[in-house]
């Protein structure tokens, strides 16, 4: 991966993931022509969709005709491998997917599911978008986000640390301070 040789096109994969949820609105919008054209225009070659429990099936395409190659699957035990080989990740707003992607240092667009009953998930995506770690979008605005995004302006995420919590718990319980 990485270099173009002998005119062979470099593979630049966009990985769409909905985790264990059902988020057809995202699968549908990722599969729509407008978004696919925009991704192709921005230099991506492959679209791989992890569709989870949804029922909408995208149209598979080999991409031979000078367009985006499209493939999909429901679940995989190796989501991490797919994330690692992706050039861009488009994810649902679950914190697991968000932090797994950020910790791999991959550019990320989070699409908030507007159909959830208790939609607190946008809070995290919006906060991290404000800190420029990712782009936050909705199904209807995904193609605008892709068209206007500037991946160089994203700030790498520094992984968090649980030691402050552990310290307070130890102190509360009367354990001696760690030396």
């Amino acid at each position, binding site marked *: 991966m990485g270099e173009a040789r002998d005119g062979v096109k470099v593979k630049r994969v966009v990985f769409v993931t909905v*985790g*264990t949820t059902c988020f057809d609105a995202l699968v549908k919008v990722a599969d729509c022509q407008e978004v696919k054209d925009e991704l192709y225009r921005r230099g991506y070659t492959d679209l791989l969709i992890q569709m989870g429990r949804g029922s909408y099936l995208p149209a598979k395409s080999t991409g031979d005709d000078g367009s985006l190659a499209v493939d999909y699957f429901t679940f995989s035990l190796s989501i991490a491998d797919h994330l690692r080989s992706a050039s861009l990740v488009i994810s649902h707003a*679950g*914190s*697991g997917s968000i*932090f797994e992607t950020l*910790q791999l240092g991959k550019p990320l667009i989070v699409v908030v599911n507007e159909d*959830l*009953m208790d939609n*607190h*998930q946008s*809070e*995290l995506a*919006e*906060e991290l978008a404000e800190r420029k770690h990712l782009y936050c979008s909705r199904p209807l605005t995904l193609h605008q986000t892709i068209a206007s995004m500037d991946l160089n302006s994203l700030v790498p995420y520094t*992984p*968090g*640390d*649980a*030691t*402050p*919590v*552990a310290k*307070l*718990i*130890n*102190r*509360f*319980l*009367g*354990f*001696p301070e*760690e030396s």
Partner: protein
Amino acid sequence: MEKNSSCCFSNLSSNLPITCLITFITIFLHRVLNVIYRTGKPLGKRVSPQRPLSTLIVLGSGGHTAEMINLLLVLRKERFTPRFYIAAATDNMSLQKARVLENSLADSSETKGLSAEFMQIYRSREVGQSYVTSVWTTLVAMAHALWLMIKIRPQVVLCNGPGTCIPLCVIAFFIKVIGIRRSSIFYVESIARVKRLSLSGLLLYKLRIADQFFVQWPQLQRKYPRAHYVGCLM
């Protein structure tokens, strides 16, 4: 005269249950207030710091479990032993992740053996379930939780949502009230909560069930001053 005394007796016998009830309620309320008063007060220096504390770890799902595993990685395991893991019956991934963690511990230390147990519990509310039907499922979850908590009687409860931890924490609270076991309850609000607490978090905070309440964003600490801001776990 005889009539009078029998009347007096019947008076007493009808008052006795009421007197007992009032006494009971008074003692109970006193215990509840006592436990609430002591909630959040540090235990003070341990007399024997080497002695471990039995620990209940409530695993949420997905992101919640990932955060809990990150916390467990930095806690000194010899202080929190034995460890009881509880996850929702519908969630197979979380216990699997905990097993992987425990196996890696067992490999790295010589003290192999029964330092960890894994259990499942009925969930009080699934994601997306309506609040009305969740009343019934909560009752079932409570009964199951009661059974597990009587078996475990943990000294430390670690939880970070979602709803699975509520029945367990409420029961841990009442075990304190009855005086069977004084446990310390720690709650870490999920990193996904930036502006508002989750329902579980709000309950444990407002009812003062959690001894220590941690949040991962400064905005939340400003809104809930008794919470400790600890930065991001992920």
